[in-house]
């Protein structure tokens, strides 16, 4: 299965998890308190997020804290920028077409 940042953010629970740990590192138990789902479900999402390399584990004593890999989120920005550029290219082409049409009219 595809494992990347886009897979990670495609699910609403995972987005919520990211939002929470963006503020502070959290244990799975602390995270689970924020959701109606089971602790197992939260663990599954954390596993996917880890595989997508969007979070990493920090061991402190017997506790595991999940930390956000902020650098990874920048991939999304890159993706967005590519998307914006595609539309910019199309619209710049349209500018030329409109200029041509205006000249035909006059």
């Amino acid at each position, binding site marked *: 299965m*595809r494992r990347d940042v*886009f*897979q990670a*953010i*495609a*699910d*609403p629970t995972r*987005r919520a998890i*990211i*939002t929470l740990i*963006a503020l502070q590192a959290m244990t799975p138990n602390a995270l689970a308190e924020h959701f109606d789902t089971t602790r197992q479900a939260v663990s599954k999402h954390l596993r996917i997020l880890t595989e997508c390399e969007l979070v990493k584990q920090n061991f402190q004593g017997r506790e595991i804290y999940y930390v956000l890999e902020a650098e990874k*989120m920048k991939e*999304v*920005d890159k*993706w*967005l920028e*590519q*998307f*914006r550029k*595609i*539309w*910019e*290219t*199309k*619209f710049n*082409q*349209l*500018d*030329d*077409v*409109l*200029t041509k*049409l*205006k000249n035909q*009219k006059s």
Partner: protein
Amino acid sequence: MNTTTQVVKDFKAKSILITREFNAPIDLVWRSFTESEILDQWWGPAPWRAETISQDFSVGGYWLYVMIGPENEKHFGRMNYLAINKPNSFELEDVFCDENGVPNRELPVSSGSNHFTTTPTGTRVEFKMSYATEEQLQQIVEMGFEEGITACLEQLNALIINSKI
């Protein structure tokens, strides 16, 4: 006049809004978005180009076109027209299809609405695309960028919807 292309995502609404202003009167901009002869001149972002197969710009009609890549790759798209309010807006549906326009129902459908407004210096276009369900969105995300761009550019919108937390 500000001619930057703005892209605003609303991930809760599973939608994305693209805004751009053009230095031309509303009737010309309207024609550029609705007449296939003009669409063919700009719809494909270079080095890609769009070529119309057929078009029926009426409610219930559709535009069937092919995107042709630099290596002659071909990907077919179909834009269904759902509502038309000339020259202010039209509603559409964008589907993946084969060369005969037969929709591929296994792939997500995106809904769009195009709004045109007269401004002191020209015309503003607001183009909003949205997806019905989280699952469709996820499907698009899983398809990945490469396939998304070649299969149908409009479908790319969904990749962006959830891109910012």
